[in-house]
């Protein structure tokens, strides 16, 4: 029987076996295959053969790898280092490109991953879920009511330990007088079962603690234990006063535990039977764990059924609500995060495209330079495999080192960047799952990319360079011509693309950055934040004053009463501060100018028939003293009078920057403003519109310097100081106001006094973020500086890569014409003609590249012109042209120096 095993399997077997045993083993299997096929049939025998091939491959391949490594690895590495040192320009430029690409890619992906789809560092953390009701008409999350949770607990078998929580910042005083603020969670005891983390000391909350008659207890987080109880080794049983209620510490959680977000103290939720009325039940955050065997999908299906049933039973309440379940920490990031991440992402991608184009260019260029060496080595007996492996090793050393450096940079930078990110977001600390390190997935991903990169840079060009016979290559090289890498027109395409990409993308990258966000007309100079022109930041003390409901608020009336009481207490704090001898003036606002108050799209219709003007501005709610405190004067119209602070008032002021940037200098007085919804569906504070009654000079105090932001000043009516409906955590926030205090010159520091006053007014008030205006705006400046630094450094590096890439390409492409130039010289062509021919062609390539790139860059820059972008476009073009033309000089001179006789003889 002549039947042979399947060729593919046989080939695989041959590849797996070492040379010395290959023939014997392949022959053995052929022999058995033939004899078995006669008795067992083709299919069975083929399956048997495949199993044999797999088994033999599995046994011999590792052995072959182990055999191969010790003998050649050391030598390959040594040669690699020597070759990398021999071409320092290419090594440095290529290395930097890979480093930058890795640092940006790894850093950005890790950051976004942690932000949007983090992994909870808890046992089976991916099975912990969050459920909320979605208002399908408004597209907004409305949370889950305690009633809903009770229903889900009963009727959704895929979920267990369904529970609720509410979070708040809460002032706390220990029994030994240590005071501070804790991030408190009121929660069901099932939370600790869901998270499966045992306490470090004492116990966690139990269902018994949740009963109304149970004594108040608290479980503290590790850092609250350290700060509030001063790390007392025997903390169990100690008392802590929370919002005026003496509470017993029953447990301490281990370091790093902060469920559900950033919490470091947990008390029972305090559910009453009245809370279970579907209409008035408070809406809270929720958590649950997927039951054994259940999946997110099965839970989703069950919830859908329950949701439909509820909608059928009570269409008025549940008609537009839809329960939605998702992994607990997974979220779509809120407005600012999306803006930051997408902005940085766009810039990174633009820059990475340029960097990658350069690495590929350099890889080919390097191979051209080494063609001669490769041909000689081949002729001396080196196998193709040996040469390819050697070149792969070189690429791996280069890419591996650069990847390691890039990952280290990303790792070092991530901690700093995320700290600033959360400071700007005014989160008390990052969520407990936040991880500044690099995840294993990211590291594996980067290592795989490095290997792929090494193959692309080392193996692909090497295979191309080592193909074909040796003799002709040696002949071509000795005659001074090109070798095996016949790229012809592709060189021209590469050069044109290289130049076009650099011209198109580099100025755009700078321009994206300079445009900034929120529709503000920020000039490019925003990259250099002006620290408080015209005022001494140290003269101003600022803090956030907030108040939390001790029990969840059930009805609108309860909420209104709570807000009204809060307003009175906030005003009492202001009045008490005003009496302090160190204080010159005090004001309350909705936020810190330029930080935590919203930017909105605004449309202005004037009294006349002019068409509406659209633009972007920030709204700051202010009390009567704020503008005086900031030394801002009314330059047109009138100030806000007492009547303007009534709840039904529509009067607002705008600053001069609003008039110049949004209105283009037109008259603002009497204009009517309308506000559109934010991207996240948030309705701005002045939903009903407003009338401009006056224009004020740009207040001197602003995070970015006076007059950078168009601002609308609306009267602060403290009762509707709304819960912040956005922010990183997308959680409902309690009422909050920003206190501004202007100190008398040379006054004593105020911070301690401020705490005392707040505590005296009411212990349920809490004071956070106390500091000078300079402290408060610090993160903005640091964030801006870090962002500007990263972008400039990356842009500079990419520009350097582009210039080096174009230089290398031009230089190589002219080198390849050495023989042609020498022959033309030999047959009597004038040198000036030869030189001008070479330069003409190079200049044409560069010009086409610049023109193509400008086609993309110029319209965009003209649309949103920023002076820096035009300048950077000109710099990029000038540098590329200079590098390209300079690169032609050396090879042309070398070619012209070849003796005419030698050139002709070679031909």
């Amino acid at each position, binding site marked *: 029987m002549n039947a*042979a095993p399947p060729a593919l399997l046989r080939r695989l077997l041959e590849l797996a076996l*070492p040379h010395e*045993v290959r*023939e*014997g*083993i*392949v*022959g*053995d*299997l*052929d*022999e*058995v295959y*033939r004899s078995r096929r006669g008795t067992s049939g083709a299919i069975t025998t083929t399956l048997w053969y495949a199993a*044999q091939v797999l*088994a*033999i491959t*599995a*046994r*011999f391949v590792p*052995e072959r790898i182990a055999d191969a490594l010790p003998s050649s690895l050391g030598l390959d590495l040594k040669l690699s280092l020597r070759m990398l040192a021999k071409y320092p320009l290419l090594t440095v430029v290529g290395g930097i490109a890979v480093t930058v690409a890795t640092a940006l890619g790894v850093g950005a992906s890790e950051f976004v991953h942690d932000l949007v789809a983090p992994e909870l560092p808890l046992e089976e953390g991916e099975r912990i879920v969050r459920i909320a009701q979605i208002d399908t008409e408004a597209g907004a999350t409305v949370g889950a009511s305690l009633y809903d949770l009770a229903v889900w607990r009963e009727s959704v078998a895929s979920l267990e330990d369904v529970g609720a929580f509410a979070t708040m910042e809460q002032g706390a005083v220990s029994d030994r007088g240590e005071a501070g603020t804790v991030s408190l969670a009121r929660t069901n005891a099932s939370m600790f079962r869901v998270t499966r983390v045992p306490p470090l000391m004492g116990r966690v909350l139990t269902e018994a603690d949740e009963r109304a008659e149970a004594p108040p207890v608290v479980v503290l987080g590790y850092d609250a234990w350290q700060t509030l109880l001063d790390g007392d080794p025997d903390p169990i049983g100690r008392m802590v006063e929370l919002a005026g209620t003496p509470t017993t510490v029953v447990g301490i959680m281990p370091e790093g535990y902060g469920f559900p977000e950033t919490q470091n103290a947990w008390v029972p939720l305090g559910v009453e039977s009245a809370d279970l009325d579907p209409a008035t039940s408070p809406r809270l955050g929720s958590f649950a764990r997927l039951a054994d065997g259940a999946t997110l999908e099965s839970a989703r299906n069950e919830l859908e059924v329950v949701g439909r049933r509820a909608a059928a039973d009570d269409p008025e309440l549940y008609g537009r609500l839809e329960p939605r379940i998702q992994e607990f920490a997974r979220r779509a990031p809120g407005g600012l995060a999306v803006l930051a991440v997408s902005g940085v992402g766009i810039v990174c991608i633009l820059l990475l495209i340029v960097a990658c184009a350069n690495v590929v260019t350099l890889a080919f260029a390097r191979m051209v330079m080494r063609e001669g060496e490769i041909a000689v080595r081949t002729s001396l007996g080196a196998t193709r495999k040996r040469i390819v492996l050697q070149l792969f090793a070189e690429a791996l050393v280069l890419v591996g080192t650069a990847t390691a450096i890039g990952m280290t940079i990303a790792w070092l930078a991530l901690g700093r960047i995320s700290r600033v990110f959360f400071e700007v977001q005014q989160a008390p600390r990052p969520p407990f799952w936040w991880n500044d390190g690099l995840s294993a997935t990211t590291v594996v991903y980067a290592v795989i990319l490095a290997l792929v990169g090494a193959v692309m840079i080392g193996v692909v060009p090497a295979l191309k360079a080592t193909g074909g016979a040796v003799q002709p290559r040696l002949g071509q090289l000795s005659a001074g011509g090109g070798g095996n890498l016949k790229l012809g027109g592709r060189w021209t395409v590469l050069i044109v693309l290289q130049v076009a990409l650099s011209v198109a993308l580099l100025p755009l990258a700078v321009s994206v950055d300079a445009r900034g966000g929120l529709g503000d007309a920020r000039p490019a100079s925003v990259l250099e934040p002006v620290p408080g022109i015209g005022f001494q930041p140290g003269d101003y003390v600022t803090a956030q004053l907030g108040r939390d409901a001790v029990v969840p608020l059930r009805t609108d009336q309860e909420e209104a009463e709570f807000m009204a009481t809060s307003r009175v207490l906030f005003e009492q704090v202001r009045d008490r501060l005003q009496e302090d001898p160190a204080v010159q003036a005090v004001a309350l606002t909705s936020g810190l100018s330029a930080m935590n108050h919203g930017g909105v799209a605004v449309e202005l219709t004037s009294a006349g028939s002019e068409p509406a003007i659209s633009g972007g501005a920030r709204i700051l709610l202010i009390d009567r003293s704020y503008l005086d405190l900031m030394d801002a004067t009314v330059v047109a119209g009138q100030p806000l009078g007492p009547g303007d602070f009534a709840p039904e008032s529509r009067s607002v002021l705008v600053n001069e920057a609003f008039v110049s940037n949004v209105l283009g200098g037109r008259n603002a007085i009497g204009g009517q403003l309308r506000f559109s919804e934010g991207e996240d569906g948030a309705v701005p504070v002045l939903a009903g519109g407003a009338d401009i009654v006056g224009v004020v000079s740009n207040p001197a105090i602003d995070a970015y310097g006076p007059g950078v932001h168009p601002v609308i000043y609306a009267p602060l009516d403290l009762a509707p100081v709304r819960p912040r409906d956005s922010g990183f955590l997308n959680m409902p926030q309690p009422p909050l106001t920003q206190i501004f205090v202007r100190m008398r010159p040379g006054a004593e520091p105020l911070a301690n006094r401020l705490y005392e006053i707040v505590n005296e007014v009411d212990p349920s008030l809490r004071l956070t973020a106390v500091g000078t205006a300079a402290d408060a705006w610090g993160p903005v400046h640091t964030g801006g500086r870090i962002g500007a630094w990263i972008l400039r450094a990356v842009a500079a590096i990419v520009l350097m890569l582009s210039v080096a890439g174009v230089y290398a390409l031009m230089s190589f492409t002219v080198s390849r014409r050495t023989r042609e130039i020498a022959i033309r010289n030999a047959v009597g062509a004038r040198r000036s003609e030869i030189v001008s021919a070479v330069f003409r062609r190079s200049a044409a390539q560069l010009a086409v590249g610049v023109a193509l790139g400008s086609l993309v860059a110029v319209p965009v820059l003209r649309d949103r012109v920023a002076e820096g972008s035009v300048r950077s476009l000109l710099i990029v073009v000038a540098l590329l042209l200079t590098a390209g033309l300079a690169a032609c000089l050396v090879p042309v001179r070398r070619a012209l120096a070849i003796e005419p006789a030698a050139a002709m003889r070679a031909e």
Partner: protein
Amino acid sequence: MPPGVQGIGEFEQMVLLAILHVDAQSRGEAYGVPIVEEIERRTGRTVSRAAVYVTLRRLEKRGLVTSWMSEPTGERGGKARRCVRVERAGLDLLRESRRAMARMWDDLDPSIVGGAS
């Protein structure tokens, strides 16, 4: 066994013994296929060919067997056989292993020895 000389495992012994058996039957033509068959026939167990080939290679590296290529044959798709022969060192180690095993059985209670047979 001299000190410092590594012993041989059970599977290595089987392969060496199979070579000797095949050698005796076919006068110097012991190669992969009959060696596998011999082990399977005598032990009644299915043997992994991959394990046999890896073992043969290892034994050759240790100098316990030597190999040479025969003439190519048509029934093997024009491939030659890789024939093997047990060297003196291999024989010595086999004998030593057998003696060591016998000494381990010595002096055991007859009921145990009998139960094993």
